[in-house]
């Protein structure tokens, strides 16, 4: 069971968060109301998606106090615990893309399919483009097409034809490109990668224990963040790491684990 610890915790968090939102609309629960774009925690604390708020800001709209405050709170939270923790611990799309990636590994599609090149920085281009379009069109551009909000709103307020978008993402990740949506396209994930650039909670690698089995690299959705595996003992510092902990789970040698950034630096200096 140890090898599924973080996976289990992540699924639990994802489902619990989704359920709290659904319960708010369906049964009037008052814990977490709204959706992932903006919500109200216990009716007191405002929360807002910083990327959505920036998009709204560049349209030239006068921002409400609650979404400014909400975006700051969320930015601070993920700035500390690791930006893309949102992607792997909260985002409902993660369950879809993880399933696609798992199925892809089981069917060994990556082995028979020649991998075509997409730049990992494509998502930052899309992020920039969305802001330009928001400013020009006078409406938050990514929010009108975001499959993430579509999926989440769909679960809470009614799906409509939104299921189509989710099916497209699943098939894209399964048949076209490994981790295609989350790893290359999604600008929301890109925004959290920027937010979490200097976060405190990091995966740390101990090269002395590593046997170079590369199990971690197989399961990692952002493989380039693990460039130090079997080379040097250091922390995963790239913002693209989603803190999903899957590498920690699968490592039989305990060569990977979560730790706090500042302590690591000190211990490194002492060495």
């Amino acid at each position, binding site marked *: 069971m140890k090898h599924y610890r973080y996976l289990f915790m992540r699924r639990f968090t994802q489902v619990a968060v989704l359920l709290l939102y659904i319960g708010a609309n369906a049964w009037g629960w008052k814990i977490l109301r709204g959706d992932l774009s903006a919500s109200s925690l216990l009716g007191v604390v405002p929360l807002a998606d910083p990327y959505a708020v920036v998009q709204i800001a560049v349209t030239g709209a006068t921002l409400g106090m609650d979404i400014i405050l909400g975006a700051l709170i969320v930015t601070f939270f993920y700035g500390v615990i690791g930006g893309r923790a949102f992607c792997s611990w909260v985002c409902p799309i993660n369950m879809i893309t993880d399933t696609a990636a798992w199925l892809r590994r089981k069917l060994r599609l990556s082995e028979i399919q020649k991998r075509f090149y997409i730049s990992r920085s494509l998502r930052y281009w899309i992020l920039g483009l969305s802001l330009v379009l928001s400013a020009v069109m006078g409406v*938050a551009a990514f929010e009108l097409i975001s499959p993430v909000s579509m999926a989440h709103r769909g679960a809470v307020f009614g799906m409509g034809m939104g299921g189509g978008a989710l099916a497209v993402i699943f098939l894209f990740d399964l048949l076209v490109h490994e981790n295609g949506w989350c790893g290359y396209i999604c600008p929301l994930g890109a925004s959290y990668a920027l937010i979490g650039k200097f976060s405190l909670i990091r995966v740390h690698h101990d090269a002395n224990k590593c046997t170079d089995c590369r199990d971690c690299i197989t399961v990692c959705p952002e493989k380039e963040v693990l460039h130090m595996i079997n080379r040097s003992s250091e922390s995963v510092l790239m913002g693209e790491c989603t803190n999903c902990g899957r590498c920690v789970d699968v490592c039989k040698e305990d060569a990977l684990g979560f730790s706090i950034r500042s302590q690591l630096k000190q211990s490194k200096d002492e060495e």
Partner: protein
Amino acid sequence: MKSSPSNDRRYFLLSIARGIGLSAMGALVWSAYVGEVKAAPLVLRPPGALSENEFIKNCIKCGLCVEACPYDTLKLAKPGDNLPLGTPYFTPRTIPCYMCSDIPCVPVCPSGALNESSVSSYIQAQAKLNINRARMGLAVIDEESCIATWGIQCDACYRACPLMGQAITIEFSKNERTGKHAFLKPVVHADVCTGCGMCEHACVTQKAAIYVLPRALAMGEAGNHYIKGWDPKDEQRLDSIKKEVPHELTKTKLSEKSAIDSLNDESGL
């Protein structure tokens, strides 16, 4: 490819050009879609909503107004509804706005897309929510299908109106066809109507003969240059204009030539 300064430069320029080209292509498709989705003028927004253009700029699509609505009036636009995705709207024929006096949907809005002060009255500088100030739309009557204008007695919309006798009044006129009956026609007053849609909901015809349209769509505009001279308040607008315009008026030089009948002037032929 051998790495030389000139090849490096070419590679760099090429990758920049490619990036710009792909971005432009993406932007074209994306903006076309966004423009298409944005252009949905036939949509009714919750009370206190900013003008449609400002509203879709501000709305963060959180659905807090939808959750606050006790009558399930408000819905979030789903994919397939052909409305700006995720924004709140209502369909009065199905469920109208019941005009709660505490307007639960407005104060919860975190983004400012629903503006509390536009649905508040100020009594001695004290803001108090007043749903009667909401302007969600305007009821419009299709006289062709309204059975009251045929001479059949029906005042369903008049009775359903929460501002009965103010937003909708009944106008009496003689029914010349029978010679002894009256037409009791409903008339909507745009300065009072909130656009709640209870009339549309109540209308007895197969397809509602009275229905709510967004105000920007339902109303014309006379323009500032028409002044109701018989209305002292409107007449005051002239005073402010007089103050703005300096007293020296522009003088056009009079023609020195004598006036001639232009139609008989053959000099130009």
